[in-house]
């Protein structure tokens, strides 16, 4: 009778002996590791007086048990390297909890700081990079090499491609990168685990012998296709759709002669999953300033849905101040552009495109008002925030949350954006001009002209207090 009593009392308790140290915990704590984990498997067995023996280091186990109990990491975790903790978490099958505890909080542009600079061991100038996996991992193309860094920013490996300078890269599958170069022909798919080229695609036209050795300028992908913009030596260009299951060219979209700035090859391609459209844009700068276009293509009909050219034919309210860069916020279907002369940021609703859809964001703070004259702006939209680089500096436009009864964005015009600097003045001193930005997971990656390595910006909930 008494035995049965103690049995029910201890029903959900479990003892573990890890490397000679006894741990006692509850079945529910172990089950929170998830059904496939080693610990959940142990808790499932028939209750017994003998503790289960696990031949591992007890100190790291205590960290991971703390993680399971409280779902955050104890301060003692700092005694171990990221690598060690990752390996042990993988061993016990608690990597999802570990990831949740160690990954940075959601990226907020108004509260982000430079966490580290990833530097590949050799040829350390990133020529392109992709954070497309969305878990905070990044693949950096530097010269002809691709270096992978996992979600923990640990070096996962480096492969060498046959290209000498990769200028566009996109991770199209978890282990496959699509790469292109502005000095060599074709789109190439490389398997990262084996380092082998699995397929390549070239733009050819049996009726036009001039279409050969076309180079790839930009790549994007949907769940079923890879899209890449190709350009021939005589500037003729198009967007090719490559089917992901057959790896063959499925269709040719938007073939243009490329003889004017309105028909050059798109240098930016973004797939809009909600509408299935492809956003393409290009900017050229000449003696008379910047000029560029934005086009939306429907890959199913291969037809253009909408286009705008700047400097336009007088339609734009800001004639003569054409955009220097443009990007699209995929989640909210909003385009953002940065003007080349004034440096102003304009936005346009993709669901309501007109002849002049642009609304210019106003800066009310007189000390932050644009003075104009900046060049080489880069704009990147990520998680409803708009990151804009001004030469070396980095600023962010973020939306002020408004409590309004109608959630439907009827008042697109009334959305309130505020502008803030992400970096400090000393951050951008002695650094190069920002060349590319891309968000991935809860990180923002920034590469600069002539600077080795890739900057990683994260938000943090730690105060970072400095004691004297």
């Amino acid at each position, binding site marked *: 009778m008494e035995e049965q009593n103690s049995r029910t009392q201890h029903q959900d308790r479990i003892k573990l*002996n890890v*490397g*000679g140290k006894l741990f006692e915990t509850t079945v529910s704590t172990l089950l929170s590791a998830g059904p496939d984990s*080693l610990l959940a*498997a*142990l808790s499932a*067995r*028939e209750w*017994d007086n*003998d*503790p*289960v*023996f*696990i*031949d*591992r*280091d007890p100190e*790291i186990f205590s960290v991971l048990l703390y993680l399971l109990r409280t779902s955050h990491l104890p301060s003692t975790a700092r*005694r*171990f*390297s990221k*690598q*060690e903790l990752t*390996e042990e978490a993988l*061993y016990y099958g608690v990597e999802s909890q570990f990831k949740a505890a160690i990954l940075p909080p959601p990226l907020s542009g108004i509260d982000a700081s430079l966490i580290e600079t990833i*530097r590949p*061991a*050799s*040829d*350390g100038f990133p020529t392109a990079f992709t954070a497309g996996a969305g878990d905070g991992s990044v693949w950096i193309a530097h*010269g*002809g*090499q691709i*270096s992978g860094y996992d979600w923990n920013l*640990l*070096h996962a*490996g*480096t*492969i*060498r*491609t*046959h290209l*000498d300078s990769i200028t566009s890269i996109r991770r199209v599958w978890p282990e496959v990168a699509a790469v292109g170069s502005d000095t060599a*022909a*074709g789109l190439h798919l490389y*398997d990262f685990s*084996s*380092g*082998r*080229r*699995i*397929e*390549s695609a*070239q733009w050819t036209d049996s009726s036009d012998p001039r279409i050969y050795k076309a180079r790839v300028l930009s790549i994007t992908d949907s769940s079923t296709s890879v899209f890449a913009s190709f350009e021939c030596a005589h500037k003729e260009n198009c967007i090719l759709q490559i089917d992901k299951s057959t790896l063959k060219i499925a269709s040719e979209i938007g073939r243009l002669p490329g003889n004017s700035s309105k028909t050059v090859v798109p240098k930016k391609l973004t797939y809009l999953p909600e509408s299935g459209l492809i956003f393409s844009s290009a900017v050229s700068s000449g003696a008379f300033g910047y000029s560029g276009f934005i086009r939306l293509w429907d890959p199913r009909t291969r037809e253009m849905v909408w286009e705008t050219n700047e400097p336009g034919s007088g339609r734009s309210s800001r004639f003569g101040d054409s955009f220097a860069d443009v990007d699209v916020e995929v989640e909210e279907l909003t385009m953002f552009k940065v003007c080349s002369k004034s440096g102003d940021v304009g936005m346009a609703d993709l669901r309501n495109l007109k002849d002049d859809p642009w609304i210019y964001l106003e800066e009310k703070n007189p000390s932050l008002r644009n003075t104009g004259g900046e060049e080489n702006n880069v704009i990147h939209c990520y998680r409803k925030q708009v990151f804009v680089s001004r030469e070396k500096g980095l600023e962010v436009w973020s939306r002020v949350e408004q409590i309004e009864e109608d959630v439907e964005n009827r008042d697109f015009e009334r959305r309130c954006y505020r502008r803030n600097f992400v970096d400090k003045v000393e951050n951008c001193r002695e650094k190069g001009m920002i060349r590319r930005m891309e968000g991935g997971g809860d990180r923002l990656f920034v590469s600069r002209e002539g600077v*080795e390595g890739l900057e990683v910006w994260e938000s943090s909930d730690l105060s970072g207090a400095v004691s004297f």
Partner: protein
Amino acid sequence: MPPFSVQNQSYSSNGGFVKKKSETNVITINVGGQLFQTTKQTLTLAGSNSLLSTISTNSNSIPFIDRDPEIFSILLSLLRTGNLPSKSKLFDLQDLIFEAQFYGLAEFLVSSLSNPSQFEAFNLEKSLILPLSGRDSPSAISTTNSGSVHVAHGSKITSFDWSLKKKSTILTHFNAVDSILALSPSLAAAGATDFSGLQILDLKRGFVRETLNWENQTKSSSTVQAIGSSSDYLFTSFESGRRNSNTIMVFDLQDNFRPVAEIAHGEIYGTDLDSAIPATKLKWIPSYNLLMAAGSHGGPSGVMGNIRLWDIRSGNVHWELNEKIDCFSDVTVSDNLSAIFKVGVNSGEVYFADMRMLGRQWICLGDGRKGYKGKKEGAGSKIESHGNQVFCSKGGDVELWSEVLIGSTRASEDELDERVFKKNLIGRLKDSSENKITNLGFGGNRMIVTRNDQQSVEVWQSSSKGY
């Protein structure tokens, strides 16, 4: 390694726990007052010579070991996971080695810290500088598999052990050692181009164990031009003191350096100096069972040389290539890539010849036209192969050549050659140095570099693997 075990139970492969009355395989050890528990399987990983494997056999009472428990916990972690835990950084590597020697785990520690499989060619960073005493720059280096390095500088040879924490220096008979080859961590063969005989040196005690000579017809001295080895044989390229005859001697490494054969005997008659060029580089190619011997010679009409592949059992030349245009400055063979690589003395470009198609000529991996110009851009360049890569020094930089695997059958569409080798520059901006590289060596997970006018040795390894 067994993941876990249950006392009085065993974990069956079908995923359930089956009750089984058998003796426990969990072992308890008391080290310096702290109790550790582990499994028999983990302790047997230490090897049969280890103190720990003897513990695992008698488990009547808790064995007591009177040592420091903290270092033991590090070594136990090493046995469990194969990696050193980060808290090992609190201790000096020397402490770990000392304790590992006590437990008989020294070899295990070597293989986990300096394993050739951990060599990451694309992730090499300049991580250590090993200073050399005195004023002589390194003239020759040799490495062992475990990563220990022997450096000849002047008449001295300094040996660094695998951990690169300890060194010892011995004095030799040579004015300057021109070639050195490590036979074991404590034994090396050394020779010079101005001193007769190949000396087998005991580097621990610093004496000459044996002097090997070549009895040439002119009865003059025999100087050493190059040393090479296979797992069974030691190869030495000798030249007579009068410089009119040369040969390659094969000595048996298993049988006290007994001379086995003499191959490639050459004599110079008259003024035809190119008829017998002594080999200055010897490389054994295990999978082909061939010895590559290469020598070059600078004359009024430029640099001439030859590369020969010898079958040492028959003493015949398997394949021969005479170098007249853009002769090699250095040449190496990669067994993994099945190719011979050279760096041209005129062009400074890297060439390769596929071992599977030896009839074909060199394929230049750069601008082959430069070879016809009289410049000497490749003079002094070194080329060495390691793993699946080829490393070539150009002045103060190291180039890494790697093969790109092209899976697509449409390679011809891209106008790619059958085999694609690509150049990568090693190191970051801050690592670049003006001083010309004089030697490249590979051992364990490291690349060893010596430079002109620098009384030190550079160690390059991947950042995550350095201690």
